[in-house]
């Protein structure tokens, strides 16, 4: 059975508060904060992009896993803000972790669930003994259209997970994974367009809720697990409200999702979202505990995982950088003008 | 090894010369030098031309042949010498060697740079080529950035202050006021330097030499022929040069330019002289900190003590030692390839007693110091009036 042997996260250290965005568009900050359950979001530095974030996360994952990067047989990077339309982010990551040349490699796109799609792929490659270790990364510096509701949540961050098969390496077994997919136009971006478009309230029920509940129920069916069997649950978190609602719908408690709910303090890191939530949960999980993860990507689909923590998690923790430490380090607030400058939105020519 | 003397010197006016290109600037300086030497073009045997980046600035390579052509020399062998900002001084040394070795008797050495045909930004980028392209310029480390790194460290190790650095600029502008060829003929104050825009801290705009157009030419002759052309030939007592690592970070020290120390040491030993014997010196003040480093590295002051001495006025015109009477690179201007040759021209006039308002009284022995990049090349010459 394939399992997680290490993980790493990176979140840029700049933040912008909901108040500073709302002020510009003459909106009521308090009602937005309550409505979306979010305080502030991460903002990348001008010299950061989905590739640099992916590299920082990947380097931390290698350190945590304690493997030689040359042992990686595959590296996949999922994002909706790949720096190039053609030239993979994954090759930058592969080069930057010195994984050598004998690596299977590609970029993925499935809105916010590209990273978990990559997780399923490396699980298959590892389980079938095609490779010894495989890495998936979900990383984004997502663009929020100025003045749009998504501007309050679209942020930057990434997580990298390494999968292997040897029991002595594994910190958490992935017992089962399933997916639920359909052609649903809830949120999209055309080639060359600067900002994504979305169907407003259509993104809720027919998008997020339908796919997450169906994938999770399929997981329950195939494993026989019920919500109470899990100690933790992590959902894709486009804001701080949807995951709370879908958890309740499926029979999970607020306490179960608490540790993995990161959006209120860093925003929606898109392809990083579920994976960062999973990393934050693994930072505190104990051996024997079970974690349920269901991601969501617009377009649309959800990947669901049943995970069980092993004893190795405790001894390997000394080589990991806890997500909360990363989120707190060097945290610096910027105002809307600096936010625009860092995003490259201020035109000089 | 034969003795070599300078028998003629000429400069173009330095500054933003919109009406003049490389050809016009060379002709301006060259004709003046040839007339000074009372020599005809037929007698010239060889030309060395120094220019750093004529290709980047004007799209023109092959500049030595161009110089020989424009000065009316007839089929004279011509070679371009490039050593970044030390191109001129290096060309001078090549000319010296050609005569000292006995191969030629009369050699013309020219230096030119035309920097204003491109934008200031493009010029800054081109100048960055004096450093290491792969690791310094590629990372956006500009030329002022490199000297700023040296200045920061010098301030940290020796307590050198920004005001002391500013005093170099004030002195050199004062001297330039008396130099008809200088780009700037205006006095400045310490306060004005301190309030000028920061380029790369601690260096501010007025700590930096300007972008300039200009040319300089000297005529060299073997000593036995020199008297035929000029009553007061200026003998080159020593011509020495050294190189060092291209990258600043790889040097032994950020507060000393070893290439200067080595070249100056060799020059003093060859001429059997010491720093105290020098009456007037042109040092390479591409930035104010560079003059401070030069005064220490050549040996005029102990490491860490030059800044205060300069601020106290010891190196002003007719002070303990007169430094950069031409106005230096800061006041006279820095058309990169021309500078090393201009320095020689200034010393020639000083030692002949022809420096008018900026004459150093009783000047007998002079020196020039020309640096390439952040110190990968340094050229030092010592001169004495030969009568």
């Amino acid at each position: 059975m394939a399992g997680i042997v290490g993980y790493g996260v990176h979140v840029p250290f700049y933040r912008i508060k909901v108040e500073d965005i709302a002020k510009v568009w003459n909106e009521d900050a308090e009602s937005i904060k309550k409505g979306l359950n979010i305080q502030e979001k991460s903002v990348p530095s001008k010299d950061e992009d989905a590739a640099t974030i992916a590299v920082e996360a990947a380097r931390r994952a290698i350190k945590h896993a304690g493997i030689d990067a040359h042992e990686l047989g595959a590296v996949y990077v999922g994002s909706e803000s790949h720096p190039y339309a053609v030239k993979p982010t994954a090759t930058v990551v592969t080069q930057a972790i010195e994984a050598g040349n004998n690596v299977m490699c590609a970029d993925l796109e499935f809105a916010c669930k590209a990273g978990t799609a990559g997780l399923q792929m490396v699980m298959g490659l590892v389980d079938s003994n095609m490779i010894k270790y495989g890495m998936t990364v979900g990383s984004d510096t997502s663009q929020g259209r100025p003045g749009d509701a998504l501007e309050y949540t679209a942020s930057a961050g990434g997580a990298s997970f390494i999968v292997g098969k040897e029991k002595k390496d594994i910190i958490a077994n992935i017992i089962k994974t399933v997916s639920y997919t359909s052609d649903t136009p809830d949120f999209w971006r055309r080639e060359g367009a600067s900002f994504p478009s979305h169907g407003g309230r259509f993104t809720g029920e027919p998008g997020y809720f339908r796919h997450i509940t169906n994938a999770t129920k399929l997981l329950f069916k195939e494993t026989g697990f019920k919500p109470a069997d899990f100690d933790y649950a992590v959902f894709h978190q486009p804001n701080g409200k949807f995951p709370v609602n879908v958890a309740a719908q499926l029979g999970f408690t607020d306490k179960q999702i608490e540790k993995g709910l990161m959006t209120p303090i860093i925003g929606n890191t898109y392809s990083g979202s579920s994976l960062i939530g999973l990393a934050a949960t693994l930072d505190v999980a104990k051996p024997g505990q079970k974690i349920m993860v269901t991601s969501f990507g617009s377009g649309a689909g959800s990947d669901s995982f049943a995970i069980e923590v092993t004893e190795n998690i405790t001894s390997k923790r000394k080589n990991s950088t806890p997500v909360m430490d990363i989120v707190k380090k060097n945290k610096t607030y910027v105002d809307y003008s600096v936010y625009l400058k860092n995003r490259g939105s201020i035109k000089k020519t | 090894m034969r003795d070599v003397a300078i028998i003629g010197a000429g400069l173009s006016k330095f500054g933003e010369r919109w009406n003049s290109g490389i050809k016009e600037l060379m002709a301006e300086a060259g004709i003046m030098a040839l007339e000074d030497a009372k020599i005809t073009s037929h007698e010239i045997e060889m030309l060395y031309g120094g220019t750093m980046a004529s290709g980047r600035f004007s799209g023109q390579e092959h500049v030595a042949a161009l110089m020989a052509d424009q000065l009316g020399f007839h089929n004279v062998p011509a070679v371009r010498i490039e050593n970044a900002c030390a191109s001129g001084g290096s060309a001078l040394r090549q000319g010296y060697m050609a005569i000292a070795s006995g191969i030629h008797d009369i050699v013309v050495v020219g230096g030119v740079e035309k920097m204003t045909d491109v934008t200031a930004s493009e010029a800054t980028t081109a100048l960055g080529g004096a450093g290491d392209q792969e690791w310094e310029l590629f990372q956006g480390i500009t030329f002022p950035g490199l000297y700023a790194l040296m200045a920061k460290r010098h301030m940290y190790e020796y307590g050198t202050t920004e005001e002391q650095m500013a005093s170099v600029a004030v002195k050199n502008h004062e001297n330039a006021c008396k130099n008809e060829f200088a780009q700037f003929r205006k006095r400045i104050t310490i306060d004005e330097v301190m309030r000028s825009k920061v380029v790369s801290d601690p260096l501010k705009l007025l700590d930096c030499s300007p972008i300039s157009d200009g040319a300089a030419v000297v005529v060299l002759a073997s000593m036995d022929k020199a008297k035929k052309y000029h009553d007061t030939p200026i003998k080159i007592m020593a011509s020495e040069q050294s190189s060092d690592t291209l990258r600043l970070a790889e040097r032994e020290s950020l507060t000393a330019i070893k290439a200067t120390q080595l070249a100056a040491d060799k020059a003093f030993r060859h001429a059997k002289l010491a720093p105290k014997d020098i009456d007037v010196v042109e040092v390479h003040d591409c930035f104010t900190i560079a003059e401070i480093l030069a005064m220490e590295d050549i040996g005029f002051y102990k490491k860490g003590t030059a800044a205060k001495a300069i601020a106290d006025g010891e190196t002003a015109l007719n002070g303990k030692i007169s430094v950069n009477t031409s106005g230096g690179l800061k006041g006279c201007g820095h058309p990169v390839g021309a500078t090393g040759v201009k320095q020689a021209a200034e010393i020639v006039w000083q030692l002949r007693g022809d420096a008018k308002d900026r004459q150093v009284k009783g000047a007998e022995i002079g020196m020039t110091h020309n640096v390439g990049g952040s110190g990968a090349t340094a050229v030092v010459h010592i001169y004495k009036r030969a009568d």
Partner: protein
Amino acid sequence: MERSSASLWRKIRSRYNLIGNLCENCGTAYFPPRIVCRKCGRKSKMVEKQFKGDGTVYSFTRIRVPPDTFKEEAPYNIGVIKLDEGPMVEGHVIDTGKELKIGTKVKMVFRKMYTEDDEGLIYYQYKFEPL
């Protein structure tokens, strides 16, 4: 000047991972890598060495007037960093709001160096983060 991708790709292992070298003959470490050891000349025995990226600020400056390629990035901090393993290396020091001093400890991070233009290449490289 239009860059060739090759001239910048050539040292990608050094730019991404601080891969330099070491002369086994005398034990001197170099970053960036040297073809020949400065001390040993023909007796050089160069082997690859990866530097951790931990070091101390030896000198620094904040560049406000950039070259063309860095017009969008200015101002930025440049440091001469003394790596723990010995070599001195020049590099960007990212701004974390902490005051930069000679002696500040730094570690390596991975960032964009510059982007050619909307259609050109993006160059990545090591930079340093103050601790």
